[in-house]
């Protein structure tokens, strides 16, 4: 064992102080990143990877029908009108499906928004592929303007048989301040 000091009390104390500081650091440098890594690896909090999927040609499985539900939520303080054009679709695994979401900026100022997707049940995350999504980019809207935002997706044929409904949830955030270069003050 390394001795920090010849005085045993100072030696013990110094080591224990080091342990306490290390445990404080442990929270930030180990627990937080590890949590995110684990969630990504296991896909357990429904976070999709947010990247575009390049489709591989596969046959459409017409024997199966999966219901895909759409949920839209405004983050706290986000004034936009935001919602899906249809709340649910019945789709076949392997087929390419299109739908749109609507957004309207009711304020008399230009704004930028970012939508963040989440999928439930979380086991379905890796079987839900987005080939085109408004969530890949930020969505600017001028004052009082509105927009149709496209979404194109494929449900994978390997989707576990017991999953009959997939819910795709979008939460829309106001990122105007961040885009304009100033950190949003709370």
């Amino acid at each position, binding site marked *: 064992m390394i001795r920090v000091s010849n005085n045993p009390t100072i030696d*013990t104390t110094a080591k224990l102080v080091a342990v306490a500081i290390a445990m404080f650091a442990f929270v930030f440098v180990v627990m937080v990143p590890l949590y995110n890594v684990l969630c990504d690896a296991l896909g*357990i909090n429904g976070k999709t990877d947010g990247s575009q999927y390049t489709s591989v040609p596969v046959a459409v499985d017409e024997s199966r029908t999966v219901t895909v539900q759409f949920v839209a939520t405004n*983050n706290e303080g986000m004034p936009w009108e935001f919602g899906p054009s249809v709340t649910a679709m019945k789709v076949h695994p392997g087929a390419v499906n299109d739908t749109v979401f609507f957004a309207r900026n009711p304020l008399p100022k230009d704004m930028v928004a970012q939508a963040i997707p989440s999928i439930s049940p979380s086991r379905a995350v890796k079987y839900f592929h987005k080939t085109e999504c408004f969530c890949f980019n930020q969505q600017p809207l001028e004052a009082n303007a509105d927009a149709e935002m496209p979404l194109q997706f494929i449900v994978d044929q390997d989707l576990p048989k017991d999953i009959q409904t997939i819910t795709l949830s979008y939460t829309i955030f106001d990122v105007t301040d961040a885009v304009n270069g100033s950190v949003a003050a709370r």
Partner: protein
Amino acid sequence: MGDHHHGPAKGLSRWLFTTNHKDIGTMYLWFSFAMFILGGAFAMIIRAELFQPGMQLVEPAFFNQMTTLHGLIMVFGAIMPSFVGLANWMIPMMIGAPDMALPRMNNWSFWILPPAFLILASTLFMEGGAPAFGWTFYAPLSTTYAPPSVTYFIFSIHVLGLSSIMGSINIIATVMNMRAPGMTYMKMPLFVWTWLITAFLLVAVMPVLAGAVTMMLMDIHFGTSFFSAAGGGDPVLFQHVFWFFGHPEVYIIILPAFGVVSQIIPAFSRKPLFGYASMVYATAAIAFLSFIVWAHHMYTVGMPIAGELFFMYATMLIAVPTGVKVFNWITTMWRGSMTFETPMLFCIGFLVLFTIGGFTGLMLSIAPADFQYHDSYFVVAHFHYVMVAGAVFSMTAAVYYWLPKWCGRMYNETMGKTHFWISFIGFNVTFFPQHFVGLAGMPRRIPDYALQFTDFNMMSSIGAFIYGASQILFLYNVIATIVAGKPTSEEKVWDGAEGLEWTVATPAPYHTFETPPAVR
């Protein structure tokens, strides 16, 4: 004691500047009792509101502040400092040391506590009220939706965490370096052992709590998003960090209680503790396991099934070392020449009620069953059986057991036994019915409830008032003992008591073991 040694200084400066472990222990004990009364008063408000369904006395927002402050003050202000006070008083005397290893830091670790709780209590008078998010302060309730006073709450947690860390470093440094010659680790009294292990737990997890509140502070004031989904964070992360601290924390509370009981039961059974070595190993095993079971507090967050199973089995494993302890205490009593003075009564009460609390804990550890019990009054009943009948009963036993040694006067035995029986009955009337309302579906932390829970809640409230009143009797008994108890100068106040603390004069002189005793 030589003439060249001065006694305590006079007046207020004695207490402000003292580095004497006995003075500091005394201050810790009185401070924790004051907090116990304050937290108890909040509990009385909670039970008064819940006496009948419907809104009776307080606003729901204030009710939430009461449940929050009751939990925080009882855990951090009453139970933890009371055991630190006991450690200050007893550990140097039990290992034959003249004082704690770091006496000046000892003074500091006590004196930053009262300001921390003054800050916490002052949030009651702030705009927006005190914290109202429960003692577990889950994000986003404690971040996005918190009252402005949350910043004061965070600061007070930082300060009391610092106090705990300094206190435990002091205890470890004392136990590791200041034992009398011949006092090997495996000859240490069990109270010293349990505190040594507790102190290691504290050094390991209080910084984690500090980290959790620091992240909250940054989320609230500095634009980070550790716990805010809006910025890519995750509120569930908060629960993981909190319970990584929180589960070892419950053993931090109960292990010193195990130590106390392991001192008192042999004394009144007039037999050495059964299975000393297995007690030490069981304590260490519990401490180790406490680090790998935290997520059993959060079965319902949507963990993968493998995670649920892991945390379920690991949690159930804790029943093994705990069972070893319970059986050792029972075996110590077996065929002993038992007498039932007040400390022993409280220890037997501890043993019976803590075991009930342990069993309900085992029920809660079953992941599929927990989905029903989660956040219900069943949980409230469970943790009050282990916190109150566990930690508080054993602390009360410790005060009765060592009070004659501290002040050289005997307490009133009849009053002590009366205190025990009123406490025991009041406690059970309060918390036993909560198992039933919990299983029937009454959630915790609500100011109102469905009509069918009325009878059990009335019983609970009546029991709580009885239990609360019995603590006034306790306070009276302690003060009466200090002021006018029957003087005693016997070194060994209890004929079955063993240990170095019973070899010094009664009352314990201001300085003890300036020359280390010989330990065979």
